[in-house]
């Protein structure tokens, strides 16, 4: 039998049910691997005692023949999800040692299905970033590296999640995606990242960044694992007024491998002038794989694509400036004393927020302020509708859209951190999905000349996760991406 930390979710689930090993053994193997991987800085808090307690409860359930869908599966949880009694910081100083007295709906769903928590995963501060370099706990390192052995970013904002899954520091992880924060890190680490349709997973108890764009989803080793995770994470929740009351399908059952006659759209506007040739070639390879599997390839146009990033950089900061107004040093988190209450607010927020968060709050404040509201905010919302309508029209001709996930493979730590605009370009292929509320998935499909992973993205119709996963499964089977990062990080 292979090492317990080599198992994917479906394998671990089956092994536990067949009593090949116990939940405690599986969890202990992951606890040990996490403890030895501090060089990657993927976890900001390890909870081994809680993990073993949960694993023992799972073993009892399995012994009684009452195993639930995720019984005994050890997971890492992005530090954006509130976990009852376990410190939750969004990787910002301003939340200090905040310890939620409640559980997020998504993590609550996972525990109710028997999953085990290994700890909290690093992310960009308030999920604002594409490299996981803005965390109060420092940068996360990508387990993958090129021949020069330079440390690379794992993507962001769910960089702890992607790094952990790629390094097998957890069988799967939760993540969130506001502009690409699940799919881009998955592409950078050779993992699968699924952003569901807006409203599919409850946002209740997830630290808010931009509420009309934020959506939780999994980062996993395989497409099947993503389907299993989503079946547990998704639910209707009266505590999130934007959660949608639709039955959660058995997503795993959608993985039939049969995509005959399914129409795959290729958007002309995603053809980039100076896109690296490997990405161009990989995209073509993806088209060929899906054609061979019986799909019909359709040329489509999404004419407003190039306006997606500028619209996003008004809408997301505007919502962030409103959401982050709650951090005032009064009810939780950090407080810095001031000469009066206004001074206390300003001093607390100056000390508690990092540079990128301050930039976005200020852009959002400006865009929402009197005299600029129509020119910036309303304009961006109008453009958002044009972008969403592009997809509506395209989906008259096709069922899913195939694109590259990112315009490059993982870059070096520090390479783009001095220039926020350069960093924003990372999300150029993913941000449209958030603006239109559509589900998207990144599947590892190959490596570039440096030997670094590259992902292909599929974008689905609203609540079209089953089609999306079915096509993703076909891509995964065709790509046979089995490469793993060499383990250079484990402490002996």
């Amino acid at each position: 039998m292979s090492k317990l930390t080599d198992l994917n979710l479906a394998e671990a689930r089956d092994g536990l049910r067949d009593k090949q090993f116990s939940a405690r053994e599986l969890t202990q193997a992951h606890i040990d691997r996490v403890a030895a991987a501090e060089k990657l800085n993927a976890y900001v808090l390890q909870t081994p005692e809680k993990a073993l307690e949960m694993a023992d409860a799972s073993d009892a359930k399995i012994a009684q023949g009452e195993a639930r869908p995720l019984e005994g599966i050890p997971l890492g949880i992005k530090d954006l999800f509130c976990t009852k009694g376990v410190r939750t910081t969004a990787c910002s100083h301003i939340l200090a040692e905040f310890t939620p007295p409640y559980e997020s709906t998504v993590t609550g769903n996972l525990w109710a299905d028997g999953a085990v928590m290994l700890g909290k995963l690093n992310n960009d501060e308030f999920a604002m970033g594409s490299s996981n370099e803005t965390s109060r706990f420092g940068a996360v390192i990508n387990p993958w590296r090129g021949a020069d052995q330079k440390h690379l970013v794992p993507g962001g904002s769910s960089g702890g999640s992607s790094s952990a899954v790629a390094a097998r520091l957890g069988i799967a992880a939760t993540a969130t995606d506001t502009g690409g924060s699940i799919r881009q890190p998955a592409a950078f680490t050779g993992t699968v990242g699924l952003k569901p349709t807006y409203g599919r997973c409850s946002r209740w108890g997830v630290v808010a960044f931009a509420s009309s764009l934020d959506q939780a989803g999994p980062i996993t080793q395989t497409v099947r694992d993503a389907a299993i995770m989503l079946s547990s994470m998704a639910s209707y929740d009266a505590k999130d007024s934007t959660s949608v009351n639709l039955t959660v399908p058995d997503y795993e059952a959608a993985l039939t491998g049969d995509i005959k006659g399914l129409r795959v759209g290729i958007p002309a506007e995603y053809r980039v002038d100076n896109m690296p040739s490997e990405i161009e070639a990989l995209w073509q390879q993806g088209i060929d794989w899906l054609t061979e599997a019986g799909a019909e390839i359709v040329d489509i146009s999404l004419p407003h694509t190039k306006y997606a990033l500028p619209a996003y950089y008004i809408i997301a900061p505007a919502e962030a400036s409103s959401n982050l107004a709650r951090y005032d040093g009064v009810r939780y988190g950090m407080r810095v004393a001031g000469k009066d209450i206004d001074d206390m607010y300003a001093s607390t927020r100056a000390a508690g927020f990092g540079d990128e968060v301050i930039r976005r709050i200020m852009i959002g404040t400006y865009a929402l302020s009197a005299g600029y509201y129509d020119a910036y905010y309303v304009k961006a919302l109008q453009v958002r509708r044009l972008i969403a309508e592009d997809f509506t029209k395209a989906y008259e001709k096709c069922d899913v859209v195939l694109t590259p996930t990112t315009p490059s493979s993982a870059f070096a730590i520090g390479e783009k951190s001095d220039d926020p605009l350069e960093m924003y370009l990372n999300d150029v292929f993913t941000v449209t999905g958030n603006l239109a509320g559509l589900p998207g998935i990144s599947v590892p499909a190959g490596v570039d000349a440096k030997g670094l992973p590259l992902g292909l993205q599929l974008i689905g119709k609203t609540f079209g996760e089953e089609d999306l996963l079915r096509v993703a499964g076909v891509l995964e089977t065709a790509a046979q991406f089995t490469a793993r990062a060499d383990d250079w990080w484990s402490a002996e």
Partner: protein
Amino acid sequence: MACCTTGAALLVSRETFRIPPIKGPKMSVDEKMARRIATLARIGVSDAQLPALAKELSAILGFVEQLSELDTTGVKPLTSAVETTMMGREDVINDGGYPADVLANAPERDDDYFAVPKVVE
């Protein structure tokens, strides 16, 4: 549509994507405006930080400026990507009654209250 031709390439380099240099000369936000935004956002900013902040904000606004070339006359703003009807519920208290939990993370408290610096003389 005049804004963009079908099949036009999406351009990812900063030149072709019209991304201004982060500390370029074009300034739509001056130091006075940066100060005003910081005050509105309740973020303490020192005078020394203002010039760099004004330049960064100007560059980002320079980038989003390209939205203005799109004609959006008559386009209804999209506030929610998935059309849903807001669910109603009975107007009753269905949660609460645990002040200890609510106050557990308070930086400063006084009995069952959050404590702040004196606001009213």
